[in-house]
């Protein structure tokens, strides 16, 4: 829906404001479209995974193939760590909406630490898992899917680093337009969490 607004004062100089074809903030729309493209990327990897597992697998053959064992418990704990980081970033945003700057900073730092812990445990898992990406199709798709997700966690951590630094420098405020710099990375972080829940459930459990 196209919007047309009437401002209280007409002191606008320079080119006219761009027409928006959506009722959403451009930052939100950009992030959502980016996430849609990311879902397609993950979809391609999942398509490869399920093709190998359902179509290419010989009838009666075990999955994962013999010789491959996944650490369900460690990965499960890692899942809990990552999911809890969604709660901390949501708490950070709720805090700044109420004008609580300390809550914002604590929430962002906690989220960053939880995300870093997840990544650290995943790298540790790669070191001890006992097979590499070159060992068969299972090794390739396992590292492909979890590595793709790990790269997204890294990007999310980078965004959170910027938001945390800005929070400690006194940026952000309770008004919606004043904390978009946390809210938009927050949406991305939730997406990263959701994708991990899907990856963990599909690859490690089912």
């Amino acid at each position: 829906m196209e919007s047309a607004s009437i401002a209280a004062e007409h002191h606008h100089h320079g080119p006219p404001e761009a027409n928006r074809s959506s009722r959403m903030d451009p930052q939100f729309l950009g992030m959502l479209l980016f996430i849609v493209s990311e879902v397609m990327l993950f979809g391609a990897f999942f398509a490869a995974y399920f093709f190998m597992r359902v179509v290419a697998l010989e009838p009666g053959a075990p999955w994962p193939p013999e010789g491959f064992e996944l650490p369900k418990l460690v990965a499960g704990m890692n899942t809990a760590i990552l999911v809890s980081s969604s709660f901390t970033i949501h708490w950070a945003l709720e805090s700044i909406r109420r004008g609580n700057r300390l809550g914002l900073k604590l929430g962002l730092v906690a989220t960053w630490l939880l995300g870093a812990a997840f990544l650290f445990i995943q790298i540790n898992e790669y070191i001890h898992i006992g097979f590499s990406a070159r060992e068969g199709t299972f090794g390739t798709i396992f590292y492909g899917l979890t590595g793709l997700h790990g790269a997204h966690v890294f990007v999310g951590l980078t965004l959170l680093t910027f938001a945390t630094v800005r929070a400690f420098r006194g940026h952000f405020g309770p008004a919606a337009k004043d904390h978009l710099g946390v809210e938009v990375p927050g949406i991305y972080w939730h997406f990263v969490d959701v994708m991990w829940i899907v990856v963990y459930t599909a690859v490690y459990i089912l």
Partner: protein
Amino acid sequence: MHNPLKSEADAFRLVVIIGLGAGAVIALALLTEPVYGVILTAALIGLGTGFVWRESSGSEPHRTEVAQGDDGRHRVLVVANQTVGGRALLDEVCKRCKERGSEVFVVAPALGVSPLQHWASDTDQATEEAKQRLERSVAELRRELPATTGEVGDSDPLVAIEDALRKFPADELIVSTLPPGRSRWLERDVVEKVREQVGLPVTHVVVDLEAESPAT
């Protein structure tokens, strides 16, 4: 049409829902056989798709998120379509806001947009008509209340209100309609739905344009 994913809070809700669903699938798969987990996953995906469809079409009740102001100023959101320039509405707004020096934000939904026009972005005429109505109304209100602004909103009044409340930290709402029997908003229980979805005081003003027209 309601977009179910418009804010971080919506995304967080999605994480919680998917987390709970995945928890159930994982528990079932570990306690029984993975195939039962697959069946439950398929069922949950089906349920989720249906729910998202109902929510995006507005069938599911949901709570509107309201922006929060930090300066203690009283703010009123006014929502009206054909009645946006009605005398009864202007009087009610002035009565409520003049002494308090309130900030007023008027939303005039662009009317008569069909779903096909919405998806084809063919809303120029409806937007222009709504803008003209809005400009007259805002100009009238500014004589008494200088801090009045306005915007043309989505053709769905509930979506228009939701959009406005995300950026305008209103303390109360005034919804203006035509009298019962002539108002499509009243036929659709818009006022009641606004009361359910928005946790703010809502005043309903009935504007009878036919009765007002001889005097104007």
